[in-house]
């Protein structure tokens, strides 16, 4: 059959401790149930005895019930302790897991950083800068060759373009001005209203004079 080398999970002392605690928890729960039953029985017995008017025996039963109830309280507090310890163990083991994985992550980070040497990076940057400087030099030389011959041509072409653009602009202006002169032709109509004002002023004077003789 295949798998002879299956890895069996190891049982640690922590595991045994957990098992012991869980066993204890079960046993305490069982004991608690038993105490509950006894308490109930004593309560019932006391009730019956009271009904039968057996006062002393009823009191005895109630005392026994009280003792059992005290015991129950103790068992409850032990149970709480056991549960608490189980919870604590789980918490601590989870903390350990988190710590372990953080540690592993940190180690991985260090290992990668080790491969990345500062000197190597510096050398790389220097090589890159050198290469760029070389390239710039070549560009400059090539660049010089061009402008010495063509710079004047380029400048001439530029001035051409400029004047062309100015010429394109000018013809537009006269058409705009003719619009304004058309409007000016309308204006002369306005002065014709002035004489009306004088006539109106004379007529009011005449009106003022008439009442006086009366």
């Amino acid at each position, binding site marked *: 059959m295949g*798998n002879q080398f*299956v*890895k*069996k*999970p*190891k*049982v640690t002392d922590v*595991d*045994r*401790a*957990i*098992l*012991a605690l*869980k*066993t204890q928890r*079960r046993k305490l729960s069982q004991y608690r149930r038993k105490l509950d039953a006894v308490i109930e029985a004593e309560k019932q017995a006391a009730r019956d005895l009271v009904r039968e008017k057996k006062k002393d025996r009823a009191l005895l039963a109630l005392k026994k019930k009280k003792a059992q109830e005290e015991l129950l309280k103790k068992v409850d507090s032990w149970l709480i302790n056991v549960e608490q310890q189980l919870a604590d163990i789980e918490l601590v083991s989870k903390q350990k897991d988190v710590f372990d994985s953080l540690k592993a992550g940190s180690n991985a980070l260090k290992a990668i950083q080790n491969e990345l040497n500062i000197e190597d990076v510096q050398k790389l940057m220097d090589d890159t800068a050198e290469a760029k400087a070389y390239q710039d030099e070549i560009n400059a030389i090539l660049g010089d060759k061009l402008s010495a011959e063509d710079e004047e041509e380029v400048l001439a072409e530029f001035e051409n373009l400029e004047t062309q653009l100015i010429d394109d602009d000018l013809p537009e202006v006269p058409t705009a001005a003719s619009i304004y002169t058309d409007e000016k032709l309308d204006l002369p109509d306005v002065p014709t209203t002035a004489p009306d004002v004088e006539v109106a002023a004379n007529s009011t004077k005449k009106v003022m004079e008439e009442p006086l003789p009366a």
Partner: protein
Amino acid sequence: MQKLGEFKLPHFFNYPPYFTLQPVRDTREKQVQLWKDLILDYCRTQKVFVIGLEEEFPLFSNPIIGRSLTHEAREAFLSALVADGRAEWMDKGHRKCLILWHRIQEWAEILVQFARDNGLEDGVVTMEEIRFGTESQGTELQGIDQTILNRALKILEQKGKLVVFKGTSTDDEGVKFSL
């Protein structure tokens, strides 16, 4: 439909012929099939893990029609289940039968799922917790038969998925998962 507690019994349960082992091969096969399904169904819903042939198993008799299965008939149906791999004889005399409405492998998978669901991948639980604890309430594992549980655990142990151990002699038996 007649009921056995909360379990609805199929119609054939009320017909006397079904309680007699049929001689004709075709009818016998149909009969066996019906009884096999009924037994498995009933055991699954009622969580019955062991059937004792001599005991008063409710399925084996119907007092309303006054019929019950003979010992031979019971053995025949249960043997058919054994042949299917859905049951096992617990003794040579064929007196007790372990019913596997889940095969052992299926139980093993249910156990693994249980561990995953409850965050127990590296955890420790007691046998008693698996069978009766709060986490198993309402799951298939509740009240599982100890024999079946042990078999399923053994399979998983061989695969290295868990280990059964005991701390001191007063401890319960525990299971440590390693999924």
